[in-house]
């Protein structure tokens, strides 16, 4: 089934069965390898991308469900609206990830970053509990959770500076 998909600011045409998970359209039809396969059941979060700015698990989202929505993958994240001058090509979440040297093996990190970016869009000043609840859909087998939390707090602070410390 030939269909148009709006992705990372462009429109691409793909021809796949309508039940093909978005993950495999992204990886195999469009050749974008930054989004990862971890479980195929929406349990691990490695496949997290944005649909109209909100985090979804692309491994359980059939291409038919995407419709005319705008898909953003890790490769397209930097081009998402960046509120601060001088960020160049990076989203503040990515900048925080790099500044805090978050990744270990790195396999889960695209998904982590996409989940974190959507959290900060939803809740610019999340509490630690809100961070943990939102991010609990993303598994990290290397255990970078403490570093992820630090990076999210730093990115949040940069995007919306806080007067009081984060609860």
């Amino acid at each position: 089934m030939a269909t148009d998909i709006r992705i990372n600011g462009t429109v691409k045409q793909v021809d796949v069965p309508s039940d093909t998970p978005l993950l495999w359209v992204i990886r195999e039809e469009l050749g974008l390898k930054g989004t990862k396969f971890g479980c195929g059941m929406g349990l691990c979060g490695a496949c997290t991308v944005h649909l109209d700015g909100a985090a979804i698990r692309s491994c359980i989202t059939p291409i038919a469900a995407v419709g005319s929505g705008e898909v953003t993958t890790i490769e397209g994240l930097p081009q998402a609206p960046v509120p601060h001058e001088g960020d160049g090509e990076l989203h503040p979440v990515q900048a925080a990830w790099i500044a805090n040297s978050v990744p270990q093996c790195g396999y889960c990190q695209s998904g982590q970053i996409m989940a974190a970016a959507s959290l900060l869009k939803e809740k610019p000043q999340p509490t630690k509990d809100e961070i943990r609840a939102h991010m609990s859909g993303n598994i990290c087998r290397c255990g970078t959770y403490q570093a992820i939390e630090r990076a999210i707090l730093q990115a949040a602070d940069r995007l919306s500076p806080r007067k009081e410390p984060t609860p």
Partner: protein
Amino acid sequence: MTFTRRDVLKFSSIAGGGMAVSLIFQDVDVIGSLLARGQEARADDGSGADFGPFLRILPDNSVEFVLDRVEMGQGTLTSSVTLLCEELDFPPDEVKVLQAPVDSAYNNTLYRSQMTGGSSSIVEGHVKLREAGAEARARLLKAAAEQWKVDVAALDTRDGVVFVKADPSQEATYGALAARAADLSPGRVKLKEWDQHRFIGTEVPRVDRFDKSMGKAVYSIDAAPPGSLVAVLIRPPVPGAVLEGYDESTLQGVTGVQKVVRTPASGVAVIAEKYWQASTAARALAPTVRWKSENAFQKSTSQLLELFHKEAEQEGDSVRSDGNFAKAYRTAEKKILADYELPYLAHATLEPQSATCLYREESRDEPNGLVAEIWSCSQVPDSATSFVADALGVSRDKVLLHNHLLGGGFGRRLRPDYIIEAVEVARAARLAVPIMVQWSREDDMKNDDYRPMAVCRMMGSVDEQGKLSSFFYRCAAQSIMRQFAPGFALNLMPSWIPGGVTRFLGDSMGSLMAGMVAVEGAKDTTYQCANVEVEFREIELPLRVGFWRSVGHSINGFVMESFIDELAHLASADPYQFRRKHLKDDDRRSAVLDRVAQLAGWEQPLPAGVHAGIAVHKSFESYVAQVAHVSVDGSAVKVHKVFCVVDCGRVINPLIVREQMESSIVYGLSALFAGEITFDKGQVVQSNFHDYPVLRMNECPEMIVEIVDSSEEPTGVGEPGLPPLGAAVCNAIFRATGKRVRKLPLSRGLS
């Protein structure tokens, strides 16, 4: 445009506690790890100057480092670059890191192979990498001295530039000097003193953090070349099941299916253009596949437990025998006998296994041509190559393995089964394109080589003075070494030695080494006791077992530190004090134990409902002590904090040491809470993360890690944080509930 030194300085350092970070990239093509992008050591195009097998400097002053180990999150890429850069005097973030090919020049000399594992990369590499940097720098200085007709003593370096001390404007880049320098001899080099270091001992951020934060890192799953087909393999449902047949007509008209082939290992490979097609087709085909299971493994976990318990009651091979345990135990008044049960565990690397193989028949037209070209990831690239060559009956130079980043290792990628499978599929298919065998999560969960299940019989006694009077450990489990020794033999032996001889040697090695890793962490206990027995009772089963983060220590850390806690309780002693009085003052376990007790406020009262447990364990030459703060509500266990003190000798990168302790704690907690692989009539029950849960961020305790200041030789940190963790938590559970946890995981219930 490449990333300049000025740009690097714009990053806040972690030591600087970076708040707002101002980053300006001209273009996101940063260097810092080409390896992250799947780059291998390139063939020499003549422009670069080689300084040994690890280092090449190009005229434009780029520095290429060939990484001899693999990066799987443990940080060896960054540490290795740091060691080199310290002596070379070059910024770590600007080094282009390439992956080593299969070549003995890149061996881990401790193992005489290119293995990455055993928390050994720094132990083995820290001198040789520093020497590589120092020798290159010495040559560069000589070349400059020659060029400017000055003494070497008049020169110094800074970040890739040689300059005259008295007149720093007189300078030359390494790149400009490299060609001449490579021809000079370095002479004897003296490495810097440990207190002279600029990078070593500091929190050098991970060199591969850029690509890994931008989705650019290339893993095995990403490495298949354009034009590759994808195969999904239907594997025998139980070990020993033999393929009888299948009904290919179910796939008639299914889009994209190219071929269906049988493999020598009794699998059925469905080959398609894309993964989803292959996966869908395989699911359609699977119900038609028929297996012969007469001689197959068909046991369930309940039967295995019976078997293991029976075996644990039988005498095993003695690996340590001090004094007279039998008599001391028999005559003791205060004694305990306790049987511990630990389950099979999956590695569950987040990246499921995969390998791509382009197979070409040996041809007279191209006698030196490759027969198998492979793209994958491996902790043992040379061993994988040997296996493939042996399976194909060709010489090793006909096999080329492109190694990539690992999306998690934990010991899983020490077994090259997924690589051999892909070669077999490609050979059976005889299509002139690369074929990628992609594992699903279910495939991965059910076809892992598990951390062995174990039943450990523990016996011990204390005397009137509350001191240990006897101690007995017997582990009944499968032997990992018996399964891996043949592969070691194959890799070590030159290929001209007849296969039969190699196999005999491998089997012999297997027998000799059978108990070797099983008893690690038990055999070497230093708790002072006159009567100690340590035995291994080998159980032979056709189940694949393998190296799982900390290996034998993953069982023995738990068992030893839980049982010593039981003996402390028997002696009515404080668990920390009991351990401490049985350890010599100069035992490095004592120091970490003392410090963690202090750090965790062992003597201080805790909030209501929170209880503390302590454990100490030495593994891979490093020493770790932990205290866990835990509360228990019914059967719900909450770990609030884990304090962790590590002595790993001199520290190369404290950031990475802390990260590895945190990593091991999280990995260990996952297993402790709910990790178990069980069998139902031979089939693995678990399939994905819903029935093999792993720790998530909202379950992660606060982890407080402290590193001991030490001048001992550097030792590893990839695994040592794991062994004491389970006991620290369960000892706290005992304090909270009076219930001793002897059966894991906790999800089996506290009783």
